[in-house]
């Protein structure tokens, strides 16, 4: 009873304080009421909690891939198996990487075989903007699958967007340590009504990087072997402006030949596995607008073929030579309609995918995945309330036999976002329920797969604020979030047949409590100096709550650090700049049991770059960038036994026409 009284008292005080605060805003309310809806929407969008990385950032950071960029997102946890093209995934706020979706130019990238996109195989040279979003994405025309996933990453490329310039050219050439060379060129011709574009890139690395590791008392300095890498990416796109909309179409091809160095095993440096990836993607996108109605239709077809080759496997054949062909056909419709202070949005999406393997014992799964979503937004001058309900229907069948499976899920999302409560201050509260279906590998992979897996469910609650101050010479942007997540039916691998045969099971429940703090500050002087600080800190306590009698109960989940810090400092004088990027990851555990033997040391990475931009006329620029990665030569690993490179250098030249 006393507890109830205390709670009631706290609630009363909160309401009284809120009322006082609201009264203090009366004047601004009256002004805001005059703001039309579209301006209001723009304001909300502008002051979003999303992380946005633009081309200028990408040029100075010289990341090797998208994974390198996304690790800067608050709440992100990068898992990297090292090397160029090596498997890189990002998980947000303790949810697995499969809870995030990747959207390129408004079209989702699908991989039903693994359920996740290898960020290490996505090039960055053509990226104009990268947005990381968790919670409400105010762009309601993005694919439904992305809108209702746990988090989403949006990429906008140069070659697949309309621009104001008739001709746009981008080129980037680089040379770096470990025999790394890369070249990219993209050209877009964009007269008034249409555009056509083409791009091509090539990247190569010997990957024989030096690393250091301590075995007991003995420091070992070794060189990574079997780590050659070669990729080619190219594509063509076109678009036309119609009377009330736009239509775009494009084709991309990716071809990767890579060796797999594997884990660093003490006393055994042999490695000879290889992976070949060929992917073809055809996509089209139609946007239409009529008065207050916006609509969008997209189609996307992807065929990705992977050949895994182990020439010395100790079976009868003496090798493994498997080819996996994953085909995805995906299409969707989205709409948004404004009604004064109300807006309605929604859409449907369908994905048909299958997997064909040149192993007669492997299943031949086919999946139909239907998404549907309907949402409303109420724009009050004081706040913005968004509600969203989604349903998903998944039908699956193994064409080699076995029962078909059907899964249906309904997921809600609710968001309350305030208009400015004080000068530049905005609050947000949201709840999301989402799930991810098991991948084909988790369901059907020989020995490992488990056809009875249930989807992994996630509940997320977030409370955040955003504070923006702007002056003549400075910008100050502070964002913070506190979040609580719960995951049930977590899909994990456990030994189910013997110690060497692990299989996927729904055995886990995890709770996450965390917080993020992000600060952006810009300051310009009159004598051409500029200072930019981007920093963020993430605290994540993601613990196992599966079984109170387990030794891992309430222990931090493997490979999730409690503390992550990103700090980027840029100092510019006219067209010359220096950028220093710091990345700190606290200790993690290689297994869920938080004992000393499982500890993986935290690490501190410092990258530094120096750059100068040469202007040629008003429309051309040439940027020369020198970059040092891991400048302190830290020995570190995201995953135990997958040691990352020591200090390495690169120099690159970027050209831009418009």
């Amino acid at each position, binding site marked *: 009873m006393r507890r109830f009284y205390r709670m009631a008292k706290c609630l009363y005080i909160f309401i009284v304080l809120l009322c006082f605060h609201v009264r203090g805003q009366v004047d601004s309310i009256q002004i805001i009421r005059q703001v039309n809806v579209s301006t209001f929407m723009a304001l909300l969008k502008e002051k979003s909690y999303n992380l946005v990385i633009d081309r200028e950032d990408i040029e100075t950071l010289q990341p090797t891939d998208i994974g390198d960029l996304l690790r800067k997102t608050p709440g992100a946890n990068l898992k990297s198996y090292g090397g160029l093209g090596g498997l890189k995934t990002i998980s947000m706020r303790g949810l697995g990487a499969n809870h995030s979706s990747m959207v390129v130019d408004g079209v989702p990238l699908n991989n039903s075989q693994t359920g996740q996109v290898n960020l290490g195989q996505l090039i960055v040279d053509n990226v104009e903007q990268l947005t990381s979003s968790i919670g409400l994405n105010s762009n309601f025309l993005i694919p439904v699958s992305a809108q209702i996933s746990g988090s989403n990453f949006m990429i906008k490329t140069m070659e697949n967007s309309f621009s104001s310039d008739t001709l746009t050219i981008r080129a980037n050439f680089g040379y770096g340590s470990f025999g790394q060379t890369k070249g990219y060129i993209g050209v877009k011709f964009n007269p008034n009504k249409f555009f056509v574009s083409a791009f091509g890139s090539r990247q190569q690395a010997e990957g024989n990087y030096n690393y250091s590791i301590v075995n007991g008392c003995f420091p070992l300095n070794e060189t990574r072997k079997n780590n050659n890498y070669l990729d080619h990416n190219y594509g063509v796109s076109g678009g036309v402006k119609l009377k009330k909309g736009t239509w775009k179409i494009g084709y991309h091809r990716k071809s990767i030949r890579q060796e797999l160095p594997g884990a660093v*095993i003490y006393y055994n440096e042999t490695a000879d596995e290889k992976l070949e990836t060929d992917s073809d993607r055809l996509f089209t996108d139609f946007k239409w607008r009529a008065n207050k109605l916006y609509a969008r239709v997209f189609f996307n077809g992807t065929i990705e073929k992977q050949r895994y080759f182990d020439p010395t496997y100790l079976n009868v054949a003496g090798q493994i030579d498997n080819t996996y062909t994953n085909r995805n056909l995906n299409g969707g419709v989205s709409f948004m309609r404004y009604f004064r202070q109300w807006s309605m949005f929604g859409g449907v999406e369908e994905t048909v995918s299958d997997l064909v393997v040149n192993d007669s014992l492997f299943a031949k799964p086919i999946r139909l995945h239907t998404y549907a979503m309907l949402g409303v937004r109420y724009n009050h001058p004081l706040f913005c309330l968004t509600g969203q309900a989604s349903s998903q229907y998944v039908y699956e069948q193994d064409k080699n036999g076995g029962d078909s499976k059907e899964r249906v899920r309904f997921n809600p999302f609710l968001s309350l976002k305030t208009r400015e409560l004080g000068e530049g201050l905005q609050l947000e509260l949201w709840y999301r329920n989402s799930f991810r279906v098991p991948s084909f590998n988790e369901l059907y992979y020989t020995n490992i797969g488990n056809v009875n897996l249930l989807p992994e469910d996630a509940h997320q609650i977030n409370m955040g604020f955003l504070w923006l101050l702007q002056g003549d010479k400075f910008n100050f942007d502070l964002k913070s979030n506190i979040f609580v997540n719960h995951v049930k039916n977590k899909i994990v691998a456990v*030994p189910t047949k013997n110690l060497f045969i692990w299989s996927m099971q729904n055995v886990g429940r995890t709770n996450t409590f965390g917080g993020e703090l992000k600060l952006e500050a810009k300051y310009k002087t009159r004598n051409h100096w500029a200072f930019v600080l981007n920093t963020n800190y993430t605290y994540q306590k993601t613990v196992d709550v599966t079984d109170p009698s387990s030794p891992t109960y309430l222990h931090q989940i493997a490979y999730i650090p409690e503390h992550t810090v990103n700090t980027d400092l840029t100092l510019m004088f006219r067209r010359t700049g220096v950028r220093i990027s710091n990345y700190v990851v606290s200790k993690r555990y290689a297994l869920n049991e938080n004992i000393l*033997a499982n500890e993986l040391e935290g690490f501190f990475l410092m990258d530094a770059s120096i750059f100068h931009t040469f202007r040629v006329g008003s429309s051309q620029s040439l940027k020369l960038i020198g970059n040092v990665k891991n400048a302190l030569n830290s020995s570190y690993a995201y995953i135990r036994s997958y040691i990352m490179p020591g200090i390495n250098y690169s120099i690159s030249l970027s050209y831009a026409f418009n």
Partner: protein
Amino acid sequence: MRLISLVFVLILVVSCIKDKPKPVPLSGVLSNGVVVLCEGLFQQNNTSLSWVGNDGSISNTLFATKSGRQLGDTGNDIKRYGAKVYVVVNVSSTVEVIDANTFNPIKQISMQSGGVPKQPRSIDFYNGKAYVTCYDGYVDVIDTVSLAVIERIPVGLNPEGLTVSGSKLYVSNSGGLNTPVMDSTLSVIDLNSNTEIQKITVGLNPGRCITDDEGDVYVVARGDYAGVSSKMIRINTVSDNVVNSFDLGVSGITKMNDKFLISNYDFSSGQSSLALFDPVLDVVVNSSYIDVSGFTTLYGVGFNPYTNTLFISDAMGFTNSGYVYEYSSLGTQISSAHVGLNPSKFLFYE
């Protein structure tokens, strides 16, 4: 009141100290205890050796303390021959040779052939030679004086367990890396000529082998963990024929005086059991010799002939650090020790 609190805290601290393991005398000669091989996990480089003394002392870093380095990845077997201990490390593809008394390392034998890891699995000895099954289809012969591989004997696919009976070596060919079409044979090697003289079909996926006091060999055929169940097969080593087959859940056999301890962990149900088997009568004497139903994952079983006690390990689901429990021959738990990851084999010291 303060005094009472202080006394209470002191009692608490003293009682905590009493519960802690005693410091481990790792200098000098090892005696009165057991070395536990903790396999670790694949690609984690965390194989370790634990020392559990009869006096309650525990060290989970025995090898690292003595050598200043780690054993490597996925230790699979440990045995003593004369004054040396041999540790077979599968993924690192090495055999570590250690002084049996001081536990100081003597030599690390690299087990690679033409740049390809042989993936050694198990070891046994005969007449000054160590025989090591290698997953690449051979049994390597190591001279225990020069500590060099002197010969390779071709056998079946992915040889696993081995045991010596008389002047013959019996090697189980698991074919485990050719799943689901696994091997079913036991190779018989004449140790005078070091050549395979026969293959006996015993059952799918043969693993652990053991020789009884009469010289007969027992081998575990593990099946395919699905439709084909595990069983134990008896081989007459004079005629080299299968003479008996026992349909029982079995994952390991351990010799205890003239009896066998039959251990089983059922991966699908998560149930553990430990039975007593009489190889003279060929019957299970007691199907629940030690109550291990409370184990999370029964893994290793050993019999200490010096104290006449049993050591049983719990691998705790294979991803958590394990426990070793000591039982009297009557089934009473005597002690327990918290050790490394996946404790599987024991080496006893008097």
